[in-house]
């Protein structure tokens, strides 16, 4: 019901477009710092752990690069980074809309004749779906780069082995799978958070509760969707 209202025709496309780009910045660009740090270090740690685990002489050391690439592309960047974003972006959206609800700003929009659900939710969901794949692509790149830097710096593998590994057995179709689920996760994070915020009742305490619920529900749904999408793509 809320989503039907949220995705009804915008009153003025120009205002919504401006709001869309505002949200792209708010949701996407402001998350870049966090994603950069996390992805770089996790990529590095995966590489070191893989090198340490591959003790058998039957496993070539270029498998370290291969493992880092597969881990980042298939699971860490799309799923784990989305779970982190559920906390940062989802909590932010729920508390922003919840605060607007309790301070009568949503009522003010309605009185002006604005479809508040559409104005507040539509640009956020669309911006999330648009920007999340870019964030995840950056995360994949930085994770693999982190693996290279830390792997070579710690002597876990050589530069040649790592680069050979990340180029080995590459299946482009896996990127389609990763970006598809990324877009689905973005829709889950933004719409769940917007729903929780929009139906906040009470005061500051309830805004906090909405924010927590948004993060918990979005995280659970992301894990569930991850399982379903994986089943569909891999069987």
């Amino acid at each position: 019901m809320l989503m039907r209202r949220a995705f009804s025709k915008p009153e003025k496309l120009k205002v919504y477009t401006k709001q869309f780009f505002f949200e792209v910045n708010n949701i996407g660009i402001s998350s870049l710092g966090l994603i950069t740090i996390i992805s770089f270090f996790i990529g590095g740690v995966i590489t070191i752990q893989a090198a340490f685990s591959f003790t058998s002489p039957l496993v070539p050391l270029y498998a370290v690069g291969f493992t880092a690439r597969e881990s980042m592309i298939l699971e860490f960047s799309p799923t784990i980074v989305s779970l982190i974003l559920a906390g940062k972006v989802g909590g932010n959206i729920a508390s922003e809309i919840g605060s607007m609800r309790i301070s009568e700003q949503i009522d003010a929009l309605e009185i002006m004749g604005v479809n508040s659900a559409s104005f507040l939710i539509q640009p956020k969901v669309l911006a999330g779906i648009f920007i999340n794949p870019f964030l995840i692509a950056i995360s994949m790149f930085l994770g693999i780069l982190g693996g290279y830097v830390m792997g070579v710096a710690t002597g876990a593998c050589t530069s040649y082995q790592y680069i050979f590994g990340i180029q080995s057995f590459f299946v482009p179709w896996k990127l389609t799978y990763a970006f598809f689920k990324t877009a689905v996760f973005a829709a889950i994070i933004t719409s769940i958070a917007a729903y929780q915020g929009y139906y906040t009742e009470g005061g500051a305490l309830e805004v906090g509760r909405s924010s927590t619920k948004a993060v918990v529900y979005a995280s659970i749904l992301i894990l569930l969707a991850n399982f379903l999408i994986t089943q569909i793509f891999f069987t």
Partner: protein
Amino acid sequence: MIEIKNISKSFVGRKVIDDVSFTLQAGRTNLIIGESGSGKTTILKMMVGLHTVDSGQIIYDGVVFNDLQDKQRQDFRKDIGMLFQGGALFDSMTVEENIAFPLRMFTEFSEHEIIERVNFCLAKVRLQNVNNLYPAELSGGMKKRAALARAIASNPKYLFCDEPNSGLDPKTSIVIDELIHELTLEFKMTTVVITHDMNSVIQIGENVMFLYQGKKWWEGDKTSILSANNKELLEFVYAADFLKKKNLNSNL
């Protein structure tokens, strides 16, 4: 003109508005007064469609507002301006963006015309050099005036003010009351003010309706209110005196 005909409203089985009827006159400042919990804000929220009506009608110049479909109601609201108790300015926007918002959303004005209109509205509420400030940077009185400027930006036919004096000092309260009254006369709006401030009643109460326990108890104007022969109204009007007497009697 706004006609309220036999409206009732219950929340969780408790009747908060009970068969209330009255008429709010065009081009005048209409006040709905009453003690806390008397149903003033509920009536106001029903009048603007934020609460549904259980029974009865709300008629704006012949249009039955509570019979309108969602889209029709949304369009109709473009004729309504509202000053909320806390101002309800959008936190993420500057004062200028707040006032320009309904104009950017619903008019085809050029950016130059919008800024001109914003400055005109700010001048009307006597606010200067605040265009680029955010609501968090304004005082309570300034917030109310900025919110009033936003409420009149799209030239509404009907203006609703929910306790415009709450949280303000007596001097600023008088300024806000005067502004509301002046704007009502200048723009010929039908203005409805919800208040429990007797200073406002004496100052701008051209048409006053007293609500008591969800029912209309008395109707008149600022000159007749002091001589009204109505126990509950007089208790409300002279609340301080009544409390003094009550305390005196209990001490004796």
